[in-house]
């Protein structure tokens, strides 16, 4: 665990969605054990950034290094095997697989049966509602439960770093609080490194070590969570003041 080299280093990342270039050269870093937020308005390119880092979207330029490996030209499954795993936004669970099967798919890259069973129990302890619903199809869960499933599923791969896309989107506020609490308390205690993409800037910055502000494909501001929460520009644009 070297403090010097960042776990994830993004330099001049350019990315397109279809024909349109969405990211025009994004630079950001995430160090081991940090929680870093990427905030910005709808359409700023936050989700595109994550899809690019997961190598699902094509990279047009720049360089991405993760854990000492250049992942710019890798395939999505190779990135997952290196331990960089995304929790996709909204309903990207498998709707007609059971909750348990969804979790098993999270462990797709692993072969250690006993370890997977142990991690399944750990996932159920993290979100007990998933244990009650384990035989139900994923699509029958509520929005908040689906989000919990998506987080638990990503953890099943034993990632080194999680990238979470809008965990608060379309979820009842009480569940948002619960999910953020879990992320902060449990995952941070485990030393999990997290890149968190959020529109809910207030909640995200409060639990983050550092943050970046993304505007129309460019990073316009960066600082610690506290600095950004106090920044007048952030307050005006994202905290509704």
């Amino acid at each position, binding site marked *: 665990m070297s403090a010097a080299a960042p776990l994830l280093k993004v330099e001049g990342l350019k990315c397109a969605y279809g024909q349109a270039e969405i990211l025009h050269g994004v630079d950001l870093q995430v160090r081991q054990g940090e929680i870093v937020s990427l905030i910005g308005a709808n359409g700023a390119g936050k989700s595109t950034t994550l899809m690019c880092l*997961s190598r*699902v979207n094509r990279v047009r330029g720049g360089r991405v290094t993760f854990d000492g490996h250049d992942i710019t030209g890798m*395939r*999505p*499954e190779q990135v*997952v*095997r290196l331990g960089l*795993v*995304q929790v*996709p936004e909204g309903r*990207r*669970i*498998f*709707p*007609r*697989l059971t909750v348990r*099967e969804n979790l*098993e*798919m*999270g462990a*797709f*890259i692993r072969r250690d049966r006993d370890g997977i069973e142990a991690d399944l129990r750990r996932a159920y302890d993290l979100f007990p509602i998933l244990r009650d619903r384990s035989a139900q199809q994923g699509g029958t869960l509520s929005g908040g439960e689906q989000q919990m499933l998506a987080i638990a*599923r990503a953890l099943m*791969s034993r990632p080194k770093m999680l990238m979470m896309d809008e965990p608060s989107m379309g979820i009842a506020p009480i569940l948002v609080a619960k999910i953020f609490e879990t992320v902060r308390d449990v995952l941070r205690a485990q030393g999990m490194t997290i890149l968190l993409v959020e529109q809910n800037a207030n909640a995200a910055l409060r639990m983050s070590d550092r943050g970046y502000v993304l505007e129309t494909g460019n990073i316009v501001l960066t600082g610690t969570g506290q600095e950004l929460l106090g920044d007048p520009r952030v307050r005006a644009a994202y905290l509704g003041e």
Partner: protein
Amino acid sequence: MLRAAAAAENLAIAVLGQAGAVLPAFGADGQLSGQEVFSQQLVTGLSNGMIIALIAIGYTMVYGIIELINFAHGDLCMLGAFLALTIVGALGMAEWSGVGGVGGVVLLLFSAAVFCGGLNWSIDRLAYRPLRKASKLSLLVSAIGASFILVNLGLFWGGLPMDVFAGGGSSAAPKDFPALVSNRDVLTLGDVRWTLNDLLVLAVTVPLMVALTVLVKFTKLGKAMRAVAQNPTAAQLMGIDVDRVIGSTFFIGGALGGFATVVYSLYNNTISFQMGYRMGMDAFIAAVLGGIGNLPGAVLGGLLIGVVRSMSDQYVEARWTNAVVFGILILILVFRPSGLLGAKLREKV
């Protein structure tokens, strides 16, 4: 349009072939009662239906995972039949009997399965995978192109100078497929008589369907196949190599088609380079009838189409059978486009 005319000719041949299999039922001076005729037609229909179902599974699996009607699938099965006949000829299998005969049939089944599976995988690799991000229409056109190539390969293959191809003089003519499995009755249940061929159909198709169900429901590959079908992007984010899972799906669907085509050839005793069109259409209609993308639906649809065909041959008239079957397709598309067991169709964005 040449193709349509040729197909019609083949349909007539195939239907005659089927009627031929039924003829013995009338041979015994009208001793069969109406009830017996009905039962006998039911057995024939169910046997052909199981074969159609096995081919329909190939359509429905591929549709389920990449939303493509793989129009080359029927023609792929046709080439499997040509391979089987070539092996029969090369090894002189028509003379084999007893244990050797059984071994021969097993050899044919597995050769055709591996061949069709491998060929289907290759077609995906060459004709469909490069178009994964293109529109569904491009994919469909590519499938039709693949179908034409396979039909022409079959036409060429049938012209090879082998005895089983009648010396290769007339490559387009239907070929006799030796009756390696006897058509004699071996079992009588009530008033229904089962030939060894009927039992062969069950002995091959039922275990394959059970095995496929186990594979799709319980194995890691099966779960990954369902995951890719439901959300390919999320599957990628789990570290699933989507192209590899799709390739495996093509292999499995093709292999089932290979098994089916050998059973079909043994059951109906005639093959032709155009048979893929007919088998493919029946199976495609079966898949749509059951609900495309739905595995139990493909089996149900296959059985229904098989029974409808034989009942129509018996009680309407053989030449109307295709009209009846296609009429069913139109009715489904108009009144229940999602099929009997299919979920509501949704447009993917």
